[in-house]
């Protein structure tokens, strides 16, 4: 009789823990389009702390998880600069975030970020996710990985997740400019379509 009790308790424990594991999985997958995004306070390459709340005039943001070392990130640098140039004045500035751990990827250290930003003449903040707490909240898995956010009252709504365009490696073969189309749709008050796209990228180094 006693062993039956133990068995019941053990079974219950097993079922409960199975549910707990499923929930952790869902949590880890990060944002989906339509979710409310978190603000943050991260160190910019110029030494200042940057939050999205600092940009009072902005209508939203083109948030790009990117880095110095990934060939796909490098192949997209000029396109990211062009996005900032095209949309900052229209209310959608680029905010770049390096999510990589420099102990695993030395080329993505804060000093290397400063150097890269200077070399390329970045016109946007290039922030360091030093504690690696922000990219998991967003659910970013790779560089580059774009999240377009739109202000709605006090909330930051996720409107697009994915690639910059349909040819990450080579700008010459681009046929669809996903991010350009998405921001223009938002500016025109239209729905973003497609709102989820994919591209090959480098896994984030944790």
């Amino acid at each position, binding site marked *: 009789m006693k062993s039956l009790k133990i068995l019941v308790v053990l079974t219950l424990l097993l079922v409960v823990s199975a549910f707990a594991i499923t929930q952790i999985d869902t949590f880890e997958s990060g944002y989906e389009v339509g979710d409310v995004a978190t603000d943050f306070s991260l160190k910019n390459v110029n030494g200042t702390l940057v939050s999205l709340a600092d940009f009072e005039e902005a209508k939203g943001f083109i948030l790009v998880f990117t880095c110095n070392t990934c*060939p796909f990130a490098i192949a997209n640098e000029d396109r990211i600069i062009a996005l900032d140039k095209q949309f900052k004045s229209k209310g959608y500035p680029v905010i770049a975030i390096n999510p990589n751990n420099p102990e695993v990827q030395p080329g993505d250290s804060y000093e290397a970020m400063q150097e890269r930003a200077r070399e390329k003449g970045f016109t946007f903040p290039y922030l360091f996710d030093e504690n690696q707490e922000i990219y998991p909240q967003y659910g970013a898995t*790779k560089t580059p990985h774009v999240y377009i956010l739109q202000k709605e009252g006090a909330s930051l709504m996720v409107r697009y997740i994915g690639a910059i365009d*349909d040819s990450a490696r080579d700008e010459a*073969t681009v046929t669809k400019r996903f991010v350009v189309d998405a921001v223009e749709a938002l500016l025109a008050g239209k729905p973003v379509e497609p709102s989820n*796209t*994919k*591209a*090959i990228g*480098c*896994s984030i180094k944790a």
Partner: protein
Amino acid sequence: MRSYLILLVAFLSLGCTNATKGRELPKPLKVLEEQRYELAVYDFDHFEPFLTVNDKDVVRVVNFWATWCKPCLAELPAFETLHEKYKDKKVEVILVSLDFPDQVQEKLIPFILKNQLKSDVILLDDPHGDVWIPKVSEDWSGAIPATVLISSEEYRFYERTFEYPALEHELLSFKSDFND
């Protein structure tokens, strides 16, 4: 005239064996050569047959990697060990490089030769990831490394890195009845 044709066909098929190591691979888009090494190059349409296995004894292990991807290089030895141990048991390890086409001659092929990779290595050269990544798996964000295990009955996708014990464990949980 006819015998010339036969000769020509025989000559051409001789030239192909290097890239395919004797086993029949789906027809590539083209073959690139460097240092006498022949690399089969696929766009996604030509590559797609790799994702289907008809022979019920075969397990295909497809690993997406690139020479610029550090965690990919770290796990390559696990795939090579798997190939070595199970190649006679109808396990086909295919290393699908996503290296940039302009680095094939200077980086990819020298890497393959230097490390004497024994598994089949092919190049997937298709810039439109948004179209083909979901066809490999809806669960794939596009980050590499990524791996697929395929049999005639099952298809399992992994966006993660493997060390050998975990990789072999996955293979054995996929198909355990290998004849010794």
